[in-house]
């Protein structure tokens, strides 16, 4: 299962977008680094870095590849509307162009919950803000 999930996430890649539950307009900025746990049969920690300017989101996600310990960075673009987020990106260097779509919403505990879709596969995730330290 682990290999299956990793393969999905790796060989394919990012893209996507859509919204989710409501968030107040004065919701905190989503800018920063998020520790995202992709929940297949196995939780895969992934770095999601976001930058918010008004309703526009840009960022990157470091997706694991089939080689243990290696990741590939995928650029993301999207938007946030009323608390929901939608992001998508295209995996470069894959055999076929693959889109990953991230949907989610910030909950009251400050955690983003949603799904990551890679091609026809969809995985739930939760993402906690990383307290960056030097």
């Amino acid at each position, binding site marked *: 299962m682990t290999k299956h999930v990793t393969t999905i996430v790796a060989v394919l890649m990012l893209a996507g977008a859509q919204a989710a539950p409501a968030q107040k307009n004065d919701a905190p900025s989503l800018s920063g680094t998020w*520790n995202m746990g992709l929940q297949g049969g196995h939780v895969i*920690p992934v*770095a999601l870095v976001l930058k918010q300017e008004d309703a526009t989101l840009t960022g990157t996600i*470091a997706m694991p590849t089939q080689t243990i310990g*290696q*990741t590939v960075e995928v650029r993301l673009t999207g938007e946030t509307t009323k608390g929901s987020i939608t992001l998508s990106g295209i995996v470069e260097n894959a055999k076929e162009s693959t889109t990953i779509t991230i949907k989610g919403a910030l909950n009251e505990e400050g955690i983003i919950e949603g799904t990551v879709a890679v091609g026809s596969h969809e995985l739930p995730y939760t993402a906690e803000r990383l307290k*960056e330290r030097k």
Partner: protein
Amino acid sequence: MTPLSRRAVLQGMGAAIALPFLDAMVPVRAATRASSGQITRLVCIEMVHGSAGSAPVGLTKNLWAPAATGRDFDLTPTSLRSLQPFRDHLTIVSNTDVDPANPFTATEIGGDHFRSSAVFLTQAHPKQTQGADLMAGVSLDQLYAGRVGRNTVIPSMQVCIEPVDQGGGCGYGYSCAYTDAISWAAPNRPLPMIRDPRIVFDELFGRIEPGVPEAVRREQLRQQRSILDWVMTSAARLRARLGPTDRARLGDYLEQVREVERRIQVIETRNLSGEERALPESPAGVPDSFGDHVAIMFDLQVLAFAADVTRVVAFKMGRDASNRGYPESGVSGGFHNLSHHGGRDATVLEFARLNAYHVSLIPHLLSRLQSTPDGEGTLLDHTLVLYGSPMGDSNVHNHKRVPFFIVGRAGGALRGGVHLKARNGTPLADVMLGVLHALGLDDLARFGDSEGVFDLKGIVAG
């Protein structure tokens, strides 16, 4: 009669074997005590992948730590149940975190398996690098070895079970040194771990005096002769000047050395026979059975302590992300896969059984320590064994509520027979600082990310 030197060895054919404590050394020992007190030996054991009891469902079922704190705890549902015969020596510390093992930056996210082992005994956050610019912290065992190891032949020993690969990067931008070493002599100096019992044995007992040709040594090995054969004359000479108690003690000790050596020879013979191996890439001295490998490593540690060749051991029992199976445990499935149990009850329970199996190997060490005389008591009286993991809930790669316990009273510094539950958010480093203080390093004010000193005696009624 002149007292026998604590440094006396059996010599012959260029080999030298250190001696256990003997009554004939008493005047020397008394002098040593007067100056420095009874020395506590230290064994630091790291097991990777946290515990089932650190996961939410495992916490509710008390799969690692018992429900009750204080002295009236029940180990039955826990993975620690095999320690029941030693509960009077046992200090369980639960609910502590290893924050330095967490990612501090975006590029560190996901690298937990490749970073955590470097944190276990240093409680320091490793610098993410695959180059020579390694940086972690000085490990607990090395701080202690700096105090008590200077007077022993080997200041400290570092041993492990799984293969290590100290060269190059292991993943997520981390050097394999972070993944494979738990002992750090300096923040930039990890110490290599020895996996092969033969090499450990030779370092402890097979030291060849300068001038002995390597060819002679090889021929002895080829003939499968014992290291004891090399020192027979010296041993006979020593026996003649010992009393009956010392003669028996020396005989028991040498028999134990021989017994361990014989087991290593049996393993080597089997592994060199051409029979199929479960671990075909492993050196001939490494048993295919995990339990046998751990047991022989423990026996070597006890012999090393008995002979005072070393007083400090760091023992890495697993390797992060290893998917090794443990047929002896009765649990099917690989270690890493089970550690990602997905929070499913049945898989969490299977993982707990695996945790229990790993802990069940510790009583072998404790029994051996308990049956080995040391001064007025036994080695167990004068040893502190700590066991833990830098990971908590491995399913989500967190470092909260990590598994940790101590066995031994460190010469009276610890009370034993107690479960201490830390307040939420307590760094494991606080506990490790408490361990260092219990070992006599009470001049240390900080260790890793410690915020204070955890009181290992606790305030417990009864």
